[in-house]
């Protein structure tokens, strides 16, 4: 079972939380919470287990960011959600050297939230024009910015 394998592999990483998810409610089989510095190790473990990075995004919780990585596998139904809390004005280690597909996801998050990723090979705006000076998905982006 992939779920058990993953639980075992992640157990050695000393993470905050590795728990079974409520699949019927959230769609996760495994819920993980990790610190920013632990993320590359988690990604390495995921890759070793044959999982692919389904999606990566951030949620602006006003005081902090919540970074959410979703992993799944082509062989077995097992979706893992990894939540990483990140303080504002802090950076995040990249996992794009482990999952090249994360390259664009991280650029997108940088673009829309302004989160910096350390050691990212090509961290520049992805969706917005290069001369844009705002991060639209921050919760305080609103009446003052944008136009019209």
């Amino acid at each position, binding site marked *: 079972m992939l779920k058990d394998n993953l639980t075992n592999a992640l157990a050695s990483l000393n993470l905050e939380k590795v728990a079974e998810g409520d699949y019927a409610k959230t769609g996760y089989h495994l819920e993980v919470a990790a610190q920013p510095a632990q993320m590359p190790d988690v990604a390495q473990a995921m890759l070793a287990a044959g999982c692919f990075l389904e999606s990566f995004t951030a949620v602006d919780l006003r005081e902090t960011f919540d970074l959410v990585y979703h992993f799944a596998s082509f062989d077995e139904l097992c979706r893992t959600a990894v939540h990483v809390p990140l303080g504002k004005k802090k950076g995040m280690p990249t996992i794009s050297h482990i999952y090249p597909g994360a390259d664009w996801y991280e650029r997108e998050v940088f673009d829309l939230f302004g989160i910096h990723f350390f050691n990212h090979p090509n961290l520049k705006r992805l*969706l*917005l*024009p290069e001369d844009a000076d*705002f991060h*639209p998905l921050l919760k305080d*982006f*609103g*009446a003052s*910015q*944008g*136009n*019209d």
Partner: protein
Amino acid sequence: METKTGEPLIHLGVLEEALNLARANSLWPITFGLACCAIEMMAAGAARFDLDRFGAGVFRPSPRQCDLMIVAGTISKKMAPAVVRLYEQMPAPKWVMAMGNCAISGGPFYYPTQYAIVPGADLIIPVDVYVPGCPPRPEGLIEGILLLEEKITKRGRLRKFRDAKG
């Protein structure tokens, strides 16, 4: 030669009318789609609707060889300079059709704090015909083309049809 905005230097009467008639019946659009509406534009050129019947089916990929720019879809702020540039690359006389609500006014994507789109093609280039819809049906696009013909020749099939209907 004449420019789009100014009056022609010399009026050539019948020749001018013949030219306009030719122009109206040979509107070559540029292969240029921005979003959803582009699919309906393709559908209008395809088997069932066939824009080619009106001589408007020759989609040219190079702006240098086009007469008509169909702005089919949402113009994002990133894309806006490219749209203007394409318009400038087209040789006069040239026409622009705003297809779909996004190109007319920003459509469903326009709201007070939006940051991504240009609400309306007419903010960046002059538009001759507006075809509303989200997306407009191919019939709508054809009507737009006929309206443009009417605008160019000051008469047209469409007007005749409308008059007959009363």
